[in-house]
């Protein structure tokens, strides 16, 4: 069943095969955890948002209008959960935990420098406004086009372009401060 399309698995779940849903969880959890982690700033909140998204998606699975695109539908739910959770916990101090085991070896730098640099990127990312961070992550980390982003977020293309541009400017500014320090 692991090789089956999303649509086939969704059909099985809708016919009462609850265990089939695990395949969808395995399929999407890592990629979507990445988005939630960068959006929310810590692993606990990211896992909570992701679990909530999977649970909500299951509960409303019969309302998924295009089961073959379950992943895109789930992502939309996750983006909204991150917005809600992020707003609720906006004032809470963020912790930036870098999972050493997940860091790729970098050829050009010493691994320790590389890890420190990535922490700086995380810090800079979380100094962005939430809407700019969201737009930047969707555009560059999730590699989405503006039309797709617009569909997902309900925000117009020109507004999204503006958010991405401001996010890039701010990131550049923050990271150059680190470099010059």
């Amino acid at each position, binding site marked *: 069943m692991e090789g089956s399309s999303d649509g086939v698995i969704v059909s099985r779940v809708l016919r009462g095969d609850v265990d089939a849903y695990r395949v969808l969880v395995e399929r999407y959890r890592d990629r979507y955890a990445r988005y939630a982690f960068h959006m929310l700033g810590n692993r606990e909140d990211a896992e909570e948002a992701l679990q909530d998204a999977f649970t909500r998606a299951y509960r409303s699975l019969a309302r998924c209008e295009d089961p073959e695109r379950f992943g895109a539908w789930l992502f*939309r739910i996750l983006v909204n959960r991150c917005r809600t959770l992020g707003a609720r916990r906006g004032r809470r101090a963020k912790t930036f935990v*870098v999972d050493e085991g997940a860091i790729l070896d970098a050829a050009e730098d010493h691994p320790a420098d590389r890890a420190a640099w990535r922490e700086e990127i995380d810090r800079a990312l979380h100094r962005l406004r939430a809407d700019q961070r969201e737009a930047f992550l969707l555009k*560059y980390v999730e590699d989405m086009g503006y039309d797709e982003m617009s569909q997902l977020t309900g925000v117009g293309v020109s507004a999204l372009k503006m958010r991405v541009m401001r996010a890039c400017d701010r990131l550049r500014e923050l990271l150059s401060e680190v470099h010059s320090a």
Partner: protein
Amino acid sequence: MPDDELNMRRIARDLRASSPRVDKSFDDRVMAAVRSLPRHARLTLWSRLTAPRTVTVKPLGWSVLAASVALLAIFGFNRAVDDVRVASKPIVAAVFPKTGAAAVKPPQRVQFVLVAPEAKKVAVVGDFNGWDAGHASYQAQHRGGGVWSVTAPVPIGHHRYSFVVDDSVWVTDPMAPRVMDNDYGVANSAIVVEEQK
């Protein structure tokens, strides 16, 4: 590629690489949460019911439609099906006691009707009952001919709702306008409840 664009791509690459892996127990936690929810079933019924417009336009549906129209007449239900459905004629005068001179306006009694010939159970869920399919006041009764209805209190104002068939299948009201639910990217039905004059 301009330098700035290249830099952003590099930052994005580093962000992808620095993401934590999800804890191994995550899948089990999700599946435990999922198993605590009602199990999905009856996809074929869902397929039929998710084409609500067919209920009113197919020739074969005339007998059912006639039954539902008769039912509506019996209950004195009168609603406009144009731009916005207005629950304009709550069928029972406000029966809820006022709690004070400046009290919040009482809910109005609104009748919900769904034609679902193969359903075993129909409930109404909405923002007015916490989307709770088990809420006792919102369980529809079978009136014959596949017509289900319930008359229940709904506060004055704009609301979103849906029918839940057999505890698992969500169906929008074929007679009401549909509005998008941002969380799920799917539609609910919309209702405007006005104060009875």
